[in-house]
């Protein structure tokens, strides 16, 4: 099996996976917020937001869902760019301008996700403690190592995109040599 055939086969699977994930993100988020009372008390990312109102008011849940859509929509965009990229690989397009554009879009989305997540978490802490009595409302801002790791990975993909752009120029030059 040639390398290109292998790339095309795996890319097809990856494209399907990315499509499923991109479409699954909104319903998964909606389900998570609908079952908030089940998982929230033990969720590590919400451990520092205490006390949580019991039961959580529907308005806070709706607000929480809306806030979680900020990083969620960035994730959808990232997976959509990946889907486009793998679709192009599937067609045998490796070093083309469209591939580079998709890879850069994915990299920028990852960096944006890393930036947006701490902001979304801060907004979430406000939304979830909004109905608490005075003195128990919270604004929690935290930046974790996972956020730095995500941003770092985004930067790596961005640089790989630039490197691939050099490869694209070489491929275009090569195509003009008979």
């Amino acid at each position, binding site marked *: 099996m040639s390398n290109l055939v292998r790339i095309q086969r795996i890319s097809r699977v990856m494209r399907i996976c990315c499509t499923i994930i991109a479409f699954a993100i909104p319903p998964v988020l909606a389900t998570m917020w609908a079952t908030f009372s089940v998982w929230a008390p033990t969720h590590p990312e919400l451990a520092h937001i205490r006390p949580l109102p019991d039961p959580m008011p529907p308005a806070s849940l709706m607000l929480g869902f809306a806030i979680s859509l900020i990083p969620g929509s960035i994730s959808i965009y990232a997976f959509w760019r990946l889907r486009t990229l793998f679709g192009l690989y599937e067609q045998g397009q490796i070093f083309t301008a469209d591939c580079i554009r998709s890879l850069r879009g994915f990299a920028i989305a990852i960096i944006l996700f890393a930036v947006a997540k701490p902001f979304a978490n801060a907004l979430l802490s406000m939304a979830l403690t909004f109905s608490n009595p005075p003195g128990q409302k919270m604004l929690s801002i935290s930046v974790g190592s996972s956020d730095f790791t995500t941003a770092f990975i985004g930067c790596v993909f961005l640089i790989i995109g630039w490197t691939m752009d050099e490869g694209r120029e070489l491929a275009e*030059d090569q195509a*003009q*040599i*008979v």
Partner: protein
Amino acid sequence: MPIIVTLDIMLATRKVKSKDLAAAVGITEQNLSLLKSGKVKGIRFATLQAICDHLDCQPGDILRYQKSDQE
């Protein structure tokens, strides 16, 4: 481009059709047409060798250097 491709002259001299040369060299007619019109960035030694072999000529018979006025 200061390199002038004079392949069409050699083809006419040898009375060889482009289609036959393309088949003998193993490139497409479209690529041969691009080569004849000088719209390529380069030519592989293997292609040059095959063309010279088929037309029984030297590389200098199909390529010419013309110094540009700007230089």
